[in-house]
């Protein structure tokens, strides 16, 4: 696969006088983090596969301000929100999909009061709707029968009550879905939220991602499925920390679907 994938931008759409069906909000991780970029590309491939008319903001996108807000920097958050809302409203965006639960939560819940009203979906919910509309087919392929556990991202699950969409997608892959002791509304955080991703943890006797990885290992999965770039990083580090590389993989749900399709 040498050729670059086609990723139209809003600016290009605007120049052609067209509007896309949905804006794909890539997010900082999805744009810059080497691991998360793979998720971004996998999701874009699925969008193409389902013939979704989408665009990204590209260089006009900027951090939603989530880490700043949760670290206590309300000022920086609202500055980011104000500039992003200017851009989004300028393009008359109605529908947004993102592969990052932190962006999802902020855009969906915290932007409306500041003048940004959009229908915001997490990519797992969006993929599920494509499936239901018959635009995307999900088949087991190489994951059929594999033992998989889903790690609930806090900002998708508890924060917004999305528990079933990612699981429904995994079931479509005909995997053996096993639940951790702490799952859904009781799920344990990966340790990255609230700005922790960008700082050293406070003194303690263990890192949160190790604790969570141990919980995952209790159910002996071949793959830990995730729906968040931060969780993905934390769980990947956790698996390395427990010397389970090669035995347990950490994959985003979108990557798994794209892989099953050999995209």
């Amino acid at each position, binding site marked *: 696969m040498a050729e*670059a994938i086609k990723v139209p931008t809003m600016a290009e759409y605007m120049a052609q006088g067209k509007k896309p069906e949905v804006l794909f909000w*890539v997010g*900082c991780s*999805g*744009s*810059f*983090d080497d691991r998360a*970029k793979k998720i971004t*590309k996998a999701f874009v491939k699925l969008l193409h596969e389902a013939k979704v008319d989408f665009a990204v903001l*590209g*260089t006009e*996108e*900027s*951090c939603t301000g989530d*880490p*700043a*807000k*949760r*670290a*206590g*920097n*309300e*000022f*920086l958050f*609202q*500055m980011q929100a*104000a500039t992003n809302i200017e851009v989004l409203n300028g393009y008359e965006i109605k529908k947004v999909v993102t592969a990052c639960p932190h962006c999802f*939560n902020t855009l969906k*819940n*915290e932007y409306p009061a*500041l003048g940004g009203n959009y229908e915001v979906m997490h990519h797992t919910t969006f993929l599920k709707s494509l499936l239901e509309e018959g635009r995307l087919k999900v088949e087991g392929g190489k994951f059929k029968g594999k033992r998989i556990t889903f790690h609930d991202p*806090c*900002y998708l699950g*508890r*924060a*917004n*009550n999305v528990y079933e969409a990612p699981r429904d997608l995994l079931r479509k892959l005909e995997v053996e879905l096993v639940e951790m002791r702490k799952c859904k509304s*009781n799920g*344990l*955080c990966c*340790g*990255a*939220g*609230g*700005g922790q*991703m*960008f*700082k*050293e*943890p*406070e*003194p*303690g*006797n*263990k*890192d*949160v991602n*190790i*604790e*969570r990885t141990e919980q995952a290992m209790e159910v002996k999965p071949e793959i830990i499925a995730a729906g968040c770039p931060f969780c993905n990083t934390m769980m990947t580090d956790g698996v390395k920390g427990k010397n389970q590389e090669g035995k347990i993989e950490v994959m985003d749900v979108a990557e798994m679907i794209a892989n099953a399709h050999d995209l």
Partner: protein
Amino acid sequence: MGQSKMVKRPFSGFLHIIVYLGFIIINIEVLEILIDGIFGTHRILSFLGAGYNFLIATFEILALLVLLGVIIFWLRRNVTNIYRFLGNELKGWPKNDANYILYFEMVLMILFLTMNGADYQLQLNGADHYAQNAGIAGSFPISQFLLPWFEGFSNATLIIIERTAWWLHIVGILIFLNYLYYSKHLHILLAFPNVYLSKLTPQGEFDNLEAVTNEVKLMMDPDADPYAMPAEGAEDEVPEKFGASDVMDLNQVQLLNAYTCTECGRCTSECPANQTGKKLSPRKIMMDTRDRLEEVGNIINKKGSFEDDGKQLLDNYILREELWACTTCNACVEACPIGIDPLSIILDMRRYLVMEQSAAPSDLANAMTNIENNGAPWPYNQMDRLNWAKEN
């Protein structure tokens, strides 16, 4: 019954339902006890006949179940090693407080059953004032087993036992009601308004500070005059303080949360930071807030108004290390059966640290500088944001 979140932990949740139902239902009997006491009647509600027998039998069974439940609670707290009852913040008064409540309830239930047993024996003996023409008033499925203890007691002795139990029971209840205000047990009253006032929006939605919104709007307004004179009378206005460093900066719901907390520790046992040995404990955040509020209240009571005592909630009670350990995962909020939100206090205190003191941990401060400069928490150029599409 309003207990759905309690049974997320089935065993303690089930026991709590029993004690809760016992508390509510046995209170009907307290009404009769009070009327009898004031008017010198005996079992005034007994005209209800079979219905009355059913009620008394229900009270007795509940009293026994409450007694057993409370004993199990005591064992859980004092004998078994349950993580959430071992926290540092429970040492001293909070642990004693919890046990006093349990002792109170044990004694009250024993007195209630003793009173009924002696009363039943007196009715059987046909004693004046106790015996009724219509036969035995009440049904005593539990206290009947106390009768062998009373064998050979004269009516006079039985009356002393019954009256003593009656008086201790009612006085005990009245003392207990007054004790609530010094105790974590106040949740039996405040849980109701607290749940009513709890947050209904998605847990992930944090409030947007309006004062900040106004500042940002002003900053982005090309027509705003940077040299504008303040509006008439505006010189006297105190600029809005961002975030919270003391209880005065918290809102009423947050303060109600603090008084409502009954220190069960479900929040702390679900907290990822606490589970991995960090200092943060959401329960301690609530207890500290309440303790500081009490302290501020005492100063106001003594001096008429608040005077600076050189202390504040931040640093003197809640340490920065605790605040920075939070992942904002909402597990504590989800765990609380009565809708307490420790996270909102943590966030308000972080806001104070960052916006009033610029005191974020340096790594985090770097990430925020990056967001300001190049729109991402890492130092990547915003113009490179779409490079991933060209990479393979």
